């Protein structure tokens, strides 16, 4: 039989939040371990940081920023959804305003760079 249909926006937002959370949970221990090298083993840290010039690592960093952004906005979405007694139209306007502000600030940032 067909799998249960789940591909609606709320469920996709839920699963994206969970997967990004798991991704960050896997990343953070490694991140802190690398940071700890600054105190314990500077030479090893420098050797490790040369890896960050590799294209694959730059791609992975982009993915990391994506996970962070998705998880942060997913968390804000969840808090708004559960803690603010807004109606659907108010939530849509709030999301549109956030997206608009985010878009304008990114354009501004890109021009500044």
């Amino acid at each position: 039989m067909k799998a249960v249909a789940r591909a609606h926006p709320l469920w996709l937002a839920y699963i994206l939040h969970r997967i990004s959370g798991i991704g960050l949970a896997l990343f953070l221990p490694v991140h802190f371990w690398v940071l700890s090298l600054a105190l314990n083993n500077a030479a090893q840290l420098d050797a490790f940081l040369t890896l960050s010039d590799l294209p694959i690592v730059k791609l992975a960093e982009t993915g990391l920023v994506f996970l962070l952004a998705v998880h942060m906005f997913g968390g804000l979405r969840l808090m708004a959804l559960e803690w603010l007694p807004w109606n659907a139209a108010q939530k849509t306007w709030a999301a549109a305003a956030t997206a608009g502000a985010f878009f304008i600030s990114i354009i501004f940032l890109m021009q500044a760079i």
Partner: protein
Amino acid sequence: MSEREIISVTVQRGGPDTPQRLQVFEVPAFESQTVLDVVSWIQQNADPTLTYRFACRVGMCGSCAMMVNGVPRWTCRTHVNKVLNGGKIEIAPLRNLPVIKDLAADMDPFFDKWVAAEGRHHPTRSRDDDIAAINPEQPERVVASSGIECINCSICYSACDTVAGDPDYLGPAALQRAWTLYNDAKDADKDTILDAVSGKGGCHSCHSMGSCTAYCPNGLDPLSAIAGLKRATTQRFFKGRAK
């Protein structure tokens, strides 16, 4: 006259005592045919042993819900041409409930949880008192009214992945019922309601996946109702119980 188009309908058969299997039926297509019409055609013309449940056929009684192509739907108001997938339909009993036989799901756990969520009226007055006047514009009443058109079809319960993963979870319909009563000026026992929905398997088990709201055939919003219970139980936790 041209030959009728044929729909290929895959039906899940069996129950607790017989192994589950899939059976394919060839059903003639009719104009404005509903999924319930298709199931009835099979039972009346192809296999009289097919078991299913329906009553009103107009979307009021909530007894004919089934999984149609993986989506829980009220079959009496689901047109075949809206769900036909390459000339085929797959029909199964509602998910997250025990199967009695074929397409008839056992609704007992669903209604037991309705009771467990204190989804019953706690009166403020006796039959000797006058009926309390209710202002339909009052904000609490507007919130309560938005959830009272539930027909107990169990589609939200079937759609919910939290129900699938947690047998104790009360589910969207029961929690929405509790939220409706919590906002009802004629309900006298708000604390009992919050007690019933704040324990294990209560409103805080909800992961806000939103399938309940996405698939409710009556356009209700159990997701927001459960969020309301989360706020109410949390406020009570910090502010203390009503004296």
